[in-house]
């Protein structure tokens, strides 16, 4: 399996000098194409920092991040924006939809920043919303939808531009168990379509849904386990 993501000796230090916090302490990690990985850890374990690194939202203090074999740890803000736009679909715990835009307009956002034309943008966004079962909610605003529906809009937004990586940060953290199941079903189907799904969570039950579990503790990888049966 070719390596989609390769992290070598990555460190992230907050407050360098006094009161140093090593959020990531010499982490080595590689994730291949079409993997379904759960990154699990307690709060303060460094998993959020790792997720920021994987999502190109932040740059490491030291170490190398190779995405498709290309180093992205030294890129400018705008170059990182472009990579996030093309390579990564984000799903957040708080859904992070823009309140005054409709479901359709929210899903169109990454396509706007990619420069996709109006007509094609609409088609792609509609297809993505249909895929998460919200074809009849396109003109609704986030406040008019349930939490599960909002998260499905967020998923549609993440997959609209067909990125190879889906990065889901506690996607079920704000949802009831029924909605959680729905969301996990969708994530699994995204994986079965060939995408790499990275799930960040503190909930081991949710993590069990993944094929590979990486446990983070004190900024280091505690264990990295590939499940045989799942």
């Amino acid at each position, binding site marked *: 399996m070719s390596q989609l993501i390769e992290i070598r000796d990555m460190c992230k230090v907050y407050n360098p000098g006094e009161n140093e916090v090593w959020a990531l302490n010499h982490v080595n990690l590689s994730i291949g194409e079409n993997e379904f990985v759960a990154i699990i850890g307690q709060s303060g374990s460094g998993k959020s920092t790792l997720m920021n690194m994987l999502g190109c939202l932040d740059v490491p203090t030291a170490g190398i991040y190779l995405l498709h074999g290309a180093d992205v740890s030294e890129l400018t803000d705008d170059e990182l*924006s472009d990579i996030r736009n093309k390579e990564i679909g984000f799903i957040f715990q708080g859904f992070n939809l823009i309140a005054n835009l409709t479901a359709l307009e929210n899903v169109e956002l990454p396509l706007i*920043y990619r420069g996709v034309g109006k007509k094609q943008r609409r088609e792609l966004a509609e297809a993505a919303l249909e895929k998460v079962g919200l074809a009849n909610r396109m003109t609704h605003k986030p406040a008019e939808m349930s939490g599960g529906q909002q998260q499905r809009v967020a998923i549609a937004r993440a997959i609209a531009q067909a990125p190879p990586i889906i990065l889901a940060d506690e996607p079920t953290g704000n949802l009831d168990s029924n909605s959680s199941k729905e969301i996990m079903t969708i994530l699994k189907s995204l994986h079965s379509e060939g995408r790499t799904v990275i799930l960040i969570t503190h909930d081991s039950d949710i993590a069990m849904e993944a094929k590979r579990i990486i446990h983070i503790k004190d900024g280091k990888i505690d264990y990295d386990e590939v499940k045989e049966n799942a």
Partner: protein
Amino acid sequence: MSQLMEYIKIAWLSIRNNKGRSFLTMIGIIIGISSVILIVAIGNGVKTSVLDGINGMFAGQLYIMAWEESESGEYIWFTPEDVEAVRDKVENVKAVMPVASQYGVTANWKRDYTTWITASSPDYMYAMPEPILHGRYFSWEEYEDASPVCVILEESAINLFGSADVVGESIEVTIGDAIVDLRIVGVRAKSDNAVKTMMYYYDEVEIEMPVTTMDNLTGWGLGEEFDNFLVIAETPEHSSQVAQDCIQLMEARKDVRGQQVITTDEFASVTKQINSIINYITIFISLVAAISLVVGGIGVMNIMLVSVTERTSEIGIRKALGARTGSIMIQFLAEAAMITLLGGVLGMLFGWGGAAVVCKIASLMLDMDIIAYINAATVFGVAAFSSVIGIFFGIYPAKKAANLSPIEALRHE
């Protein structure tokens, strides 16, 4: 380009979602722009109607004057021969005449009336825009013969006789030491020029008579020797050329070439003065308005900073989804520019509306036709200028938004 439209749409949504706040933010801009537009529109209206009025009264008229001593220490006097020389030699001259004005007294069975007497030649018919309502103007023959005839103003006729059609009547006029019965041959109509009605003081009785008749009666010789005479050009456009030619001709005839003792007073210069007064007022108001625009601009900056803080998480989401620094920057600049542009447009509407009301009231009060207007260049200029204010004062907040780190912004709830 399609992306730019998207940013404009986003900015518009944000303004629409904060209608009240956006409007309050605009007020400074609205006040600034509307005050400039108000003054400009009123100024345009007044300028146009006053200039029309003045042109109606004095179009193409100019005086040739010799009020200075020549180098030989003598004063220059014009004669009827000089007047004829202008008529013969200068092109585009419609009329040329000496004009002498004197106060006299007209008496009827009731009382005495103060009388303003203009003594000239039959060419004076053209010096007033008002037509002859009844009868005719006095003729060249009557002028040559120094006949006791006159033309009377319509108002004066009504003052004296109670009616306007008084052709054939006589009035007893005292001019200097002489008392004469003048036969009325014509009645000049009342002026319908509002500017003239406003600026001109009418005497109880006003008549026009041959200067020869006046000289005959009084021995003053005002039509024999005079220090100025009136020339009327064929059209207002000809007046400068006619003035130059008249001065040259007179300098040659009086042998005072290059001494600048023969001068002209074109009525065109009055219009220049009015123009420059209105321009000064406009500049002054613009300076005052500029202050209010700066204050308004700072208000916009302030609100944009609030907006950036409020929408920190939105900015984080956008950045996470791939918005570049420039995209965020343009979004907020577009929002600021749109607020000020809207303010500018509203300001223009308010300013123009206010000017229209003021001009309407002034028109009714002064019995004139003043129409407030602004031209297309002003409209586009104001639109461009108010957008620029928004962009200028939006730069700092937009930079602040664009430089937010996506993780910091996402963490902000």
